[in-house]
């Protein structure tokens, strides 16, 4: 099933399909090794749900949920 990364439940695994965020964010994510094909999992959310911590490649990176809408993933 294809969906936005923000719609993933905590603990659900997915594969990144495309990253349509603005260029600078896309680039910063790429530096972490976050590119199409990367396996990703949502780990934690802040109380309001506006920030999510993603786990991929053995690293945890926090990202705003708003920005995650523009990242398409396929659920595993």
């Amino acid at each position, binding site marked *: 099933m294809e969906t936005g990364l923000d719609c993933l439940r905590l603990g659900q695994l997915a594969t990144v399909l495309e990253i349509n965020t603005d260029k600078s964010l896309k680039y910063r994510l790429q530096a972490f090794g976050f590119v199409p094909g990367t396996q990703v999992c949502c780990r*934690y959310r802040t109380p309001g749900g506006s920030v999510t911590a993603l786990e991929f490649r053995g690293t945890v990176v926090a990202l705003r949920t708003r920005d995650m809408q523009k990242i398409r993933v396929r659920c595993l």
Partner: protein
Amino acid sequence: MTKSGERKITVALAGNPNVGKSTLFNRLTGLRQHTGNWPGKTVGVARGQTIRPGAVYTFVDLPGTYSLEGASEDERIAGEYLRSGEADCTVVVCDGSCLERSLILALQVLECCDRVVVCVNLVDEARRHGLVPDGEKLSARLGVPVVLTAAGQGEGVEALLSQIAETAAREVCPDRLVWQDPIAQAEQIARECVSGDKTQKAAFRRKVDKLLVSRRFGVPFLFLILFGIIWLTVWGANYPGILLENLFDMGYVGLSTLLKPLPWWLRGVLADGLYATSARVISVMLPPMAIFFPLFTILEDIGYLPRMAFLLDPCMARCGGCGKQALTMCMGLGCNAVGVTGCRIIDSPRERISAILTNAMIPCNGRFPTLILLGGLFFSGTGAALVVASCVALGVTGAMVSSGALNRTVFRRESSTFVMEMPPFRHPRLGQILVRSLLDRTLFVAGRALAVAAPAGVVLWVLSNTTLLQRVTGFLEPVGLALGMNGVILAAFILSLPANELLIPVILMALTRQGNIQAVAGVTQQVLQTAMTWQMGLCTMIFTVFHWPCSTTLLTIYRETGSIKKTAAAFILPTAVGCVLCVMLNLLF
């Protein structure tokens, strides 16, 4: 080759943030660069030397980056340095417990540098989590030497040094490798070269994180920690403070007898000016710092600060900032100059400026003693701690509201983002924390304050023994009164521009006019209590939180922004907030 026949080798240390690069640098050079478990700890470039038979190594510790081509200041610095070819050898420091991500940068470095040694650090942590990196296999895959190290324990450091010497002497191979798709390559290589169960590490961290950043307990826990630290600092600083003051009083008596044969003015300058001011500054500021810095260093060491940024981002986002600003504000609690420098981790230039401009509203360690003293003077027991905590809360609120206002008006709001790595938890090395934070930070800051306090004491004594100080305070009296304070206190604020720790000593010296009061314990409290009402005390506390930054911070702001206008704004903004609050409070009473 130098004349003595010793080789000079320049070595660049590159690597991701949080892979123990600074720890390795300290091991290699014997320097004590401050380390911490959060991305962006090392800002700017540090250099250090170490001498071994036959070679002098100069190490250049580059800021930790995830990439060499990015737009951020750190990435630019690191990338430019590596491409300049100044280094004879480049060491890429990788995280043995998370090799895959480290290798992405390593492959980029391999593309742009000739002589490279890959250092797989934190192998102890990797082993603890059941991961075994294979150095030989990795070396064969990358085509460069690989050394396994555990810098915290000093393991493999000598092997690294000899490998560097060997590599630096090697002929350069004319064509460098080009790695197609480094991310996929890194994934592949890491899979081949690391054996063991990767899930073990993740399971441990998840357990801890579940507690610390949980939706229900995360935020209350955060405030509990912050309040706990402030409370411990306020409460714990009391006793050693009195002890130190008594000690210095004895010293004062001894010094006075010793200086008897000198002319009165020289005696005054030395004993009442230089000695008394320095002694007051030390006894008032050393105890809180000696408690605050170790506690804060523990938070830093275990990696709690990025979690704090994570938890506070939603709150900061409402002010148009990001979670990283919360982190710089916490650093400001220690020292505003450090907080301002720390603002480099904020990605958006506009948010960075507004964070810099408002950082001085967070009461730093130099102002804590003033708040504690005044709070204790006019409010009793727990009330004092509560008042001090509210002052800090007020400072934080002020900083957030004004940076929100800046982000909405002057700096037209741009879409802000927040991307931050949350590093794995590390066990705090308690012994090291104590030594580091006490010796390096506390004594460093105390030394800096003392360097200002000693000459300032002399100047103050001269000022107060001529009619100059009286004239200044008289001139400032109406302004001071309008602000709910008086001329003396306002003059003291102006005179303590070099260092905030000077405030109370200056007030005391000015209040006692002739400057011949002895630094007897209890007198501080007595003098202040007779000269100030509690309303005045409250206004002074608020003005302590909101006034111009100290000269060190101003200089740092100028260095970071490169603009006199912005430095002036950093001066005016908190002062304006303080004036408005004090005038309002004064009208209320």
